[in-house]
């Protein structure tokens, strides 16, 4: 085996440095391009298989704040985002109460006590072919 010349060694060193620099720069570029500072909020949520929501059930979700309701007429859902300023309302003895500013709603989402002036929003809910419930919050 022949000893590499000084020239070959410098060439090898230079090429190695340039390849590594290129890899580092490429990694940085990918990381930069991959970062989405202003992502579009998610509007569709897979709530799971339909079997998890038996007839006459009301299942509380915290993310997104919502309550899918299963009645004989089908599935519906209420948003649990207070219509006053957007806090997540909590279940109470007579419906829902907002822990932030005291608004209250009955079990159907109708306002019973301000400062909120609008009822809790109804959310679109659909059943997929795979028998999953998909909630839309847009």
């Amino acid at each position, binding site marked *: 085996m022949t000893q590499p010349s000084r020239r070959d060694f410098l060439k090898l060193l230079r090429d190695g440095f340039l390849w590594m620099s290129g890899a580092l720069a490429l*990694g940085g570029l990918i990381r930069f391009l991959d970062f989405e500072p202003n992502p579009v909020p998610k509007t569709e949520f897979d709530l799971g298989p339909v079997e998890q929501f038996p007839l006459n059930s009301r299942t509380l979700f915290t993310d997104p704040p919502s309550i899918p309701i299963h009645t004989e007429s089908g599935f519906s859902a209420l948003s649990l985002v207070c219509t006053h300023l957007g806090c997540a309302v909590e279940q109470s003895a007579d419906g829902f109460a907002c822990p932030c500013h005291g608004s209250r709603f009955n079990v159907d989402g109708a306002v019973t006590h301000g*400062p909120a002036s609008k009822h809790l929003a109804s959310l679109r809910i659909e059943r997929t072919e795979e028998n999953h419930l998909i909630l839309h919050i847009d």
Partner: protein
Amino acid sequence: MKKYLALASGLLLLTLAFIGWMDSRRPTPIALTPTLTGQPEYCLTCHSDLPEISTSHPVKTFGCVICHGGERLALDANLAHSSMRGGVNPSDLSVVEASCGGSNCHSGDQAAGRDHIQRVMTSVQSTYAGAIANIRYTFGAQPDLKAYFGIATVTDEQTKTGITSLQAFDPSHESSPSIQKFGVNCLTCHLHAQPREGEAYARQTGCAACHATSKHTLSTAIPYTQCNACHNRGNYNLRTMTFEERADHPTTRLHDYYQPIAQFTQCEYTLDCVDCHTRTEAMGDGDIHVNQKSIEYAQCKTCHGTPTKLPRTQTLTDPNDIASTLAMLNPVTNLKLGDTILVTEKGEPLWNTRVLADGTYALIGKATRQYFTFRPVMGSGCTQSGEDQSSAYCHECHAVER
């Protein structure tokens, strides 16, 4: 030549590695999309250790930017903070409308009780109108004690006091050296004043002066120490027309009040100021008042009545009563429909009180949650005339030695 190329490529690699290392030291961005704005912000990248500011302003709902301003997408601290409102105090009255205002928040409908900002702007705690009028009258700059000037210009088109506006007081326009000195030395601790330099004074204006009970905390459970930050901060020297700030740190509440001649009954040094003084007294009623006396009225008789008259009471029947809202915001007591509470002479609910079955009363400390009971004057041995029931008369018998 080959040697230099190898050297240059080595330097390039080192530079890129250094940039990568510097970048890896930056915190991982933490995005939050508040429900209220729907716009991502990255403040939590550096500020995730801060406590929730209050139960009424959860960060998941409000985020940071809606109140504080700032560049929501910036990860560089200087850039992120570059457009913040009011520095560490977004409630400073110079920026409060943008930070805390809005019809759904604190500058809404008067009937709905959402006109907090308008009330504070015109309150004597902001305008200092009475003191300015007194000093100007004393030194001959105005013919009477009417309020013409405030710390800032304010207007009240629906006045009930007859004062429709105050001009901003500018001591440089005064000819009396005493008034000029008063203007320079004595106007720094009111809600609409320019705060003094330094972190210690930064939150002593605007809403924060009363409600920021600790760093990044807003509360209606306001302890007397919060009031003392201004009201026991020192005293005026009327000879030199200066404000002499006290250098000690008061610990004994009764003995360390700044005015040695002040008199106190037990409840005055046991309860917190907000246990008796109402939000209207503290924050104003929306009208411009000529002085403090015109708006502050809670006295002993407000809770104790007089020898001939019991204090006013109200039984809660309306779930939308303001008393219920106030009790919800500071849940020191479980106020229910059917409860009977004391109300002031002007009808404001003292929601932290109860009328007990035996005709005595209870009060729950808004800041301490302590439970106190007390009696009406009627039926006691008090022989004071029912007509003369200001606190000064009560102090004659009930003040303690200081």
